[in-house]
């Protein structure tokens, strides 16, 4: 499912990667946020990190972590939700989605 980067690809070919990892620096640049904010998100338990040490330069964020980061930042930007609130919102949204899915399945 992962399509490796083909050196023959020119600019117009959009190769899509389905699995990727970003470093702390890449994440902050990608989202236009600060290390402090990402640390806050990690400390809230929203995303897991591989090593529970202070060397956050070594951390790697997978696509699911990036998805959560995007959600937290967007909730903050659009609805004024702080990180603690966003953590709760994410959990509730997950639960609601599972319930909807179950409901739809039972009704079909």
């Amino acid at each position, binding site marked *: 499912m992962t399509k490796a980067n083909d050196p023959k690809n020119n600019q117009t070919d959009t190769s899509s990667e389905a699995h990727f990892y970003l470093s702390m620096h890449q994440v902050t640049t990608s989202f236009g946020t600060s290390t402090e904010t990402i640390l806050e998100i990690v400390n809230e338990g929203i995303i897991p990190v591989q090593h529970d040490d202070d060397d956050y330069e070594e951390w790697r964020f997978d696509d699911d972590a990036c*998805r959560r980061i995007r959600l937290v930042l967007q909730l903050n930007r*659009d609805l004024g939700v702080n990180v603690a609130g966003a953590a709760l919102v994410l959990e509730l949204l997950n639960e609601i989605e599972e319930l909807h899915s179950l409901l739809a399945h039972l009704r079909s």
Partner: protein
Amino acid sequence: MEYKDYYKIMGLDRGASQDEVKRAYRKLARKYHPDVSKEANAEENFKDLGEAYDVLKDPDKRAKYDQYGQYWKTQGQGYNPEPGADQQQQSQRYETSDMSGFEDFINTLFRQRNQQQQHAAYYDQGQDIHAKLNISLEDSFTGAEKTLQLQMPNLDGQGNMTQQMHAIRVKIPKGIANKQQIRLKGQGSKGHGHKPGDLYIEIHITPHPFFHIQGKNIFLKTPISPWEATLGATIKVPTLAGNVNLKIPKLSQSGKQMRLKGRGLPGNPAGDQLITLEIVIPTTDNEQMVKLYEQMAQLAQFNPREKLGVSHD
């Protein structure tokens, strides 16, 4: 640019106070936020809402919108001078015979808004663009190519930041699961003068009428008749790849789950399709059938509510 009634969009009277405007925005933002909302047109509504709020929350912009907004529709058909003091003010403000002049005016009014316009479909505060794309379950199963329309900030020749529509062809990998992301390197915002960023797309699989997806597995409730349940049967069952035969053992109860290995979303490993059996009865007035049922009732001597501690009567 088409005319939009910002008051209507926000559900406000034209005389609403600034506080009321703010409150209405907060409430509707929660309602239509695409990450939170289940409404059908959430993204579009959120975008319109942002546009409306941006104008109405600023007393200056709001005043201009109030004054010129209602004349917007008549502009396209040529200027119709209306008697009254307003007319003098208007002809001083802009070239009424020059359509582009009016557009420039409106654009000046709204350029500020454009730069801060919130695009519900994506997040772009950093170097990269993070977008969401809806696909169907079939798209994931077969893989697909979709065109994503994004309004991206663009630095033009004069150093002005404008919004430009970019169409990007995206290859949807086969078997991609809900909420998974794909990354397109170098497809992020252009025109920054340095290396363009990346484009991240979060995939959302829209709910299917009868296949329910969880990760790579697909769940399907499958109705069977009482005789199929009792006698066992080989039935045809839909999968993403087409119909397959499923052998139901005899004496299968409602709720029995059966696994079709590898019939879920493709991948390494592929997901499965899980079938839940549900016994349904035919509605019938057929007298012969009814008689047969009555005979069976006699023969079976079956108390389905035994476990409830209720005797059969």
